[in-house]
């Protein structure tokens, strides 16, 4: 089938797929940022068990393939009497993995701040939580806008995992499987999805650059 034919027959599917991909991306990324910040605070806090937990989290979720995690969530969790919907399984996988990367980027942001400002914060009597909130996290986030932009794009690409489970509406990659099991879309059907991924990634990249320029800390 040509691009024109594919779009005229499956145009609406593609659009739904794009919206699903966007939705999964946005929720995953917001979740990943929240968990990433919490894990990062654990990793630098004075309480050793929390630090170990933070390191453990990152080592696990940075190193597990997305598909493997999804299979565990779909097939292993029910053994523990915990049954999540397919949608939740995908969302969990595409949140937990990027969260570990988010924490890594924040850690490198924290390292860029330098011990001096931390000592200064201590010396004016800031407690650890206050210092994290007012001095460390705001700067770490601003130092890591560009890697976070990449992470957002990577998160979007990871949401293609959704194509491995029955979802309705399915995501951009799922649309391709849907088409190719019903008619002969071939590579062209992939091409259309790829185009949507690309466009989204380019927009994210540009916005990331703009944001970075706007909030960059003068040094």
């Amino acid at each position, binding site marked *: 089938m040509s691009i024109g034919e594919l779009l005229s027959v499956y145009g609406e599917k593609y659009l739904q797929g794009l919206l699903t991909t966007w939705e999964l991306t946005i929720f995953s990324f917001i979740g990943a940022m929240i968990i990433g910040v919490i894990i990062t605070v654990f990793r630098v806090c004075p309480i050793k068990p929390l630090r170990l937990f933070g390191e453990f989290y990152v080592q696990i979720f940075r190193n597990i393939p997305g598909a493997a995690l999804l299979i565990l969530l779909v097939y292993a969790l029910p053994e523990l009497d915990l049954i999540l919907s397919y949608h939740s399984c995908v969302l969990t996988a595409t949140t937990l993995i990027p969260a570990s990367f988010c924490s890594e980027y924040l850690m490198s942001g924290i390292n860029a701040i330098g011990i001096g*400002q931390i000592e*200064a914060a201590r010396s004016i*009597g800031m407690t650890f939580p206050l210092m994290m909130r007012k*001095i460390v996290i705001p700067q770490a986030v601003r130092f890591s806008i560009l890697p976070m932009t990449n992470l957002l794009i990577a998160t979007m690409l990871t949401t293609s995992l959704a194509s491995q489970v029955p979802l309705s509406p399915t995501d951009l990659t799922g649309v391709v499987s849907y088409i190719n099991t019903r008619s002969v879309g071939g590579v062209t059907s992939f091409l259309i999805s790829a185009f949507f991924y690309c466009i989204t990634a380019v927009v994210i990249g540009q916005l990331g650059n703009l944001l970075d320029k706007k909030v960059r800390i*003068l040094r």
Partner: protein
Amino acid sequence: MSENTVIELKHIDKHYGNLHVLKDVNLSIKKGEVVVIIGPSGSGKSTLCRTINRLEGIDSGEVLIEGEKLPDSGKELAKLRSRIGMVFQSFNLFAHKTILENVTIGPVEVLHMNKTEAEKEAMELLKRVGVASQANKVPAQLSGGQQQRVAIARSLAMHPIAMLFDEPTSALDPEMINEVLNVMTELAREGMTMVIVSHEMNFARRVADRVVFMADGELIEENTPEEFFEHPKTQRAKDFLDSIKK
């Protein structure tokens, strides 16, 4: 301990691995006193200064602030730290905050002062150290001397009972050293209790009430600046003073 003692160090010992950096150091600082700690590099002066507000932990001994034992950690330690100002060699201003915010963040966040009031006071402090016109810039836009004066204002905003200066002019270009020393001299005149680690001998001579000489982690000699610089008692102090004359 007299009633006037603000800071008292008793039998402070500290090791970095095998290195014995502070050896049974005893020092007490009275209200309004200006004590300058001098000595060769690696003698433990900065470490000693930093143990006073526990940016450095100690192995044994006691640090008393107004007679109260400095807690090891937690909120109580933070509270005591808030009462002792500290100025660092590398300024350490908060890079993402404006100059004004650098000065107000302590009073607002730690002392829970009203923001408008804190800003008013901060502007007065910035005026006093001569950088009021830079209030809305960020630290990186200021010269080293200006940044260090802001750091002093940031400490003053907490209404400290004493201030620690850890080599405050060592990272400055020569022409900026005096603008910082002048602010410090002014503070000393106003009666601020100050502990200063410095290599500025002329400043020490002019401003210090007492000079403390350290070498190899030991407190070797303390005296008035006149006595110390003119008639050092120990050979090590003589050697040190000779070496810096050249």
